[in-house]
């Protein structure tokens, strides 16, 4: 079992920008980002039941700029709200990979932290951050809406401070995450997305992006070329 300390909450490369205006601009961008969060709630377990009160008029998450979104392409936050069975985890990973960067993962309930009451189960994934980079965990069984909102605010503060960079870790250490996934799903595991290509696109390749697990992936992965518009009379 990996340690919670593995969550890289501050993965900035340490370079300081000299232009003061650039800093202002970065802060403005981060400020705006932190205040327009669209969340895709992947309601897996009982934690989902705490979301309606959190979203609706009593606790009203929308006043913080957080509202639900129906597709991963437009979403910023992936909420995983309870235990994830092996079968569900495949879907969660696919959904996460389809989201556009920057993207954030929040694990709600103890089940996502360490398996919770399902810690003995053969069919559930115990620690979510072995498979996905999790930004914030909200422990509790289940956490109340106040706690959920507190977790959201924590994420917002992280983003505002430039610390919400866990998504970069998925590209930088893809081999590690892929290895854990392969360990659980078997070596023929693949999704229709192209993480390595995306890592190159964002310029986030590192030594740990590649490794023995990506080699296994390359062996059996059939690249899905998009259909080209063609006029063939």
């Amino acid at each position, binding site marked *: 079992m990996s340690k919670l300390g593995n969550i890289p909450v501050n993965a900035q490369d340490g370079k300081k920008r000299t232009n003061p205006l650039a800093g202002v601009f970065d802060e403005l961008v981060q400020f705006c980002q932190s205040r327009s969060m669209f969340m895709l709630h992947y309601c897996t377990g009982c934690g989902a039941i705490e979301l309606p009160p959190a979203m609706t008029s009593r606790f009203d998450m929308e006043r913080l700029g957080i509202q639900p979104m129906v597709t991963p392409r437009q979403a910023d936050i992936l909420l995983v709200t309870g235990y994830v069975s092996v079968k569900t985890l495949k879907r969660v990973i*696919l*959904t996460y990979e389809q989201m556009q960067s920057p993207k954030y993962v929040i694990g709600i309930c103890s089940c996502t932290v360490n398996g919770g009451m399902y810690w003995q189960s053969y069919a559930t994934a115990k620690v979510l951050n072995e498979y996905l980079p999790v930004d914030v965990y909200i422990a509790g069984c289940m956490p109340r809406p106040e706690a959920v909102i507190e977790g959201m605010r924590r994420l917002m503060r992280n983003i505002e401070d430039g610390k919400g960079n866990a998504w970069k870790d998925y590209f930088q250490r893809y081999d590690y995450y892929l290895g854990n996934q392969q360990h659980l799903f078997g070596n023929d595991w693949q999704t229709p997305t192209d993480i390595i290509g995306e890592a190159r696109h964002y310029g986030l390749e590192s030594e740990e992006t590649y490794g023995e697990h990506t080699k296994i992936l390359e062996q059996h992965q059939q690249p899905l070329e998009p*259909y*080209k*518009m*063609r006029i063939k*009379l």
Partner: protein
Amino acid sequence: MTVLDDLLLFTALASVAIIALRRFASISKFSVVVYALATVLLIKMSALGYGGEPVYSSFTVNVLGQILQWRFDALSWFFALITLVSALLAAFFMSGAWGEKYCKEHSKEAYGLLQVALILNVLSMLVLLASGDLLSLFIGWELVSWASFMMMALNPDKLARKAAIKYIVYAMAGAMAFLMAIAMTYNMTGSLDYVQVMQGMAHLSNSQIALLVSLYVMGFGIKMGVIPFHLWQAAAYAETPGAGAVFMGAISARMGLYALLVVIVQIIGLTRVAAIEIPYTFLDMQNVLAWVGALTTIIPTYIALKQNDARHLLAWHGVGQGGYMLLGVMISDSIGTAGGIMHVFNHATYQAALFMTVTAVIYRTGTSNFSKLGGLVTQMPLTFMVMVVSIIGLAGIPPMNGFVSKWLIYRALLLDGQPLLFVAAVIGTLGTILSVYKLVHNTFLGQLRLEHQEVREAPLSMLIPMLGLAIIIFATGVMPGVVLDWVAAAQIAVGIAPVEHNLGGIELVQGGLDMIWVTGIMFYGFAVGAIIFYVLGGKSKHIHQYDNYAGGHFLTSKVRYHYSNHFYAGLMHMIGGWYRNVFIKLEHALVSLVSFMSQFSENFYRSSQPVMLVAVVVVLALYFVLGSSGGAEVSAGVSLGGFNQ
């Protein structure tokens, strides 16, 4: 010999030639040349479209002291232009690859018959449009009915045959109503000539006018497919073989509107129609007809929404758009009538283009069933583009031409103070937008099926008329003044004040329309968006169709993410209860009533019970005798006088 003589003679000779040459392979090229030459002859009369004097045919027939004559005025010229151009494009469309495939699938004979049906349709429509009095109008009317029947009956499919039979039953009922109305008109006014009938109408009482209007509208309404006579049209047009459906969908049903414009608007006059109060209501006859038009826009459009076959969806829209034309004409001011008449042209352009795209899809994939299509945009991009342009026109969204005519109708409804009709028209448009989206989504968007991965773009002979129509749709949308010139001339011909217009649209004190500005601003907006997206952003990424979100499902060729079955489930949850098949049940009830009566009379004639027959005859005779003597009717008394003594 006038130009009209030339045109009619040329078309008649061409039909004879096509009937004679129908088995030859070069017939398809020949027919294209025929329609092109006929169009040239029509263009020779183009002075009509700009307010010229009517062109008379030198051929007349004298029947019962009435002179049957044929002539073209601006309205006829406008409709004839649409007819000939759509026939030209349909003939071009089927002259190449489509015709070859049709020959292979059916037979050369069937293809020849399709050509014959097309030229006969064109000829009969020209005869109808050229009619100069009520009797020649009726002759043209019957010719068009039977020519359409020939076109529909070409499809050997059982459904298609059934639709064609249904059509001819409806058409005959309409023709009988029309004939009866003509006979009564002759009886009341003593003439069949338009001008003399028009003068005679002034002396008729309101109840006589009401009777005539009801009969005429029933005759014309059946051809147009207005409520409650809308059931025949969609199936009949949809099942017509591809290129035939292009022509039929574009113009055929509009002959009803032409006759309505001539008889109701020009001869009887909408002021007379408006003077007829419907008892116990606050409506007059004109309101009733406007509401018939409004309901015709709503009901068939929402039936179209439920169709699961592209051809049927389009054909139901053809019925629904006819309602807009009727509604526009029935507003009776210059703007509304202009909208109604202009909609004929606009509808013909995009309906022909849409039927062509659907036929092209059928040509390449073999089906128009929505649940077997999807994702064809990468394989047939040009066809997709034509369909998008045409559905923008059909939905009435700028900058295509459908927007202009619908805007005119809406504007006239607002100026006329008809908020309820306006809402009805808007509801109809909403249904149109929803179902055209269904059409384009289920055919071209979504996931490409495994078996369609090798599908190619439609062949050039089909693409050229399609692209040509798309250009016309856009050009007449940006510069509606081109069409409005002809529309204004047609309005003068039927005795309505012409609409004030310029190249860009309408001049109106209360706020006009300039499509050149509208289009300019739209494209300016597109340009800004394109610059932001492509120049400043430029981070788009193409992905495979399986890299798509379906609630976390892993998509494969087995798990398709193409939502075509039970489309608009949410909407149907709300309005599904309104689909109660009332008109179908009504039709069934009528059919069973007629068959019950026919069985009754059949049994009556077949039964060999002389005692009962004698008893019935005796009772009837006694009733007649006693009733006549008691009632002291003069005529009955005279005829039975000998018997009584």
